[in-house]
């Protein structure tokens, strides 16, 4: 779990750096367009794909911190052991869903790589984004699986 947590943090840092870079890129492009008339063609595509990669890279840390939104209204009076068991079940379901998505995204990424599919303006290769999404989803699945097996031990942040 410690290793997974470290990896999740590393992913999130990369995602944050990516978002910051893309913000600066958009600023530069907008300032250039509105002052000297030089702009980066297809800046919106880069924003889209970078945001997509960043969102996927944030998912592992989100799961480490159990940040996925749940409804706790109906179980607020239940015993702690009951909610812990339900949380394990939820984590297991999430692990299965994430593993499914990671597997299918890998195949989708391979397909995008072999068919050289890219964005419209810049032709930015889509497989690069898949290469960020698929491992991040797989890591999320592993974290969720660990949480389902271990329950909320001491090493899991509340």
């Amino acid at each position, binding site marked *: 779990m410690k290793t997974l947590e470290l990896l999740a943090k590393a992913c999130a840092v990369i995602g944050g750096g990516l978002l910051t870079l893309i*913000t600066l890129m958009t600023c530069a492009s907008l300032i250039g367009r509105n002052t000297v008339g030089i702009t980066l063609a297809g800046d919106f595509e880069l924003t889209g794909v*970078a*945001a*997509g990669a*960043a969102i996927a890279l944030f998912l592992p840390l989100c799961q480490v911190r159990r940040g*996925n939104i749940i409804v706790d209204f109906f*179980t607020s009076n239940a015993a702690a052991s009951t909610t812990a068991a339900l949380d394990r079940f939820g984590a297991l379901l999430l692990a299965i869903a994430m593993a499914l998505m990671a597997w299918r995204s890998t195949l989708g990424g391979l*397909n995008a790589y072999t068919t050289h599919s890219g964005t419209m303006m810049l032709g930015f290769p889509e497989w690069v984004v898949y290469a960020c*999404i698929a491992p991040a989803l797989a890591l999320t699945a592993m974290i969720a699986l660990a949480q389902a097996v271990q329950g909320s031990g001491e090493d899991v942040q509340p």
Partner: protein
Amino acid sequence: MSPLLLTLMIFAIMLGLMAIRTPIAIAMFTAGCIGYVTQAGWSPLANFLNSQAFARFASYDLSVIPLFILMGHFATQGGISKALFRFASAVMGRFKGGLAMAAVLASAAFGAICGSSVATAATITSVALPEMKRHGYSGRLSTGTLAAGGTLGILIPPSVPLVIYAILAEQNIAKLFAAAMIPGLIAMLGYMAAIAVYVRLVPGHAPEQNTCLLYTSDAADE
């Protein structure tokens, strides 16, 4: 099985999963997958999922949302919320119940940086609640004020729910933001007026005499 009955059953499964603490996203994902498999089969679903993560995540329309969140975090980490509350309490501090009004004002100002009500409430609460407690505001007044002030986060632009609505309904985001501005300001003034009336009508919730500037610079630098 008739399609209607199937739909109702899948809907019931989704709500049931949500009720037992399954993450909402996963409850919806499971319900969608069940529906897809029963109607079209496993292979179409698997093929559909190949590109879905990319198509949903790498969307330029929605990329504004993580960027708003990033902006809010930069503002919070940069200490803007403290500075806002200091400013607001300097403006409102002379009135009775001034710190509560200052919390509303700070929430509105923070709503201009942050597009989420929960984030606004959480950020302003972390600064304003200890300060209000220290000056003898009742728990009822201070928490109620902060909860109400948090709703200004989505009214005053930027607003994440408005962006999502605009994209789904294909509306102009800038016009929606402009339209939310006036109601947001009216709500802010209304909350402040309500606090002013409440602290006068119901004694014991706010300190009687405010001694000039309550929020000193020492407290802000803790």
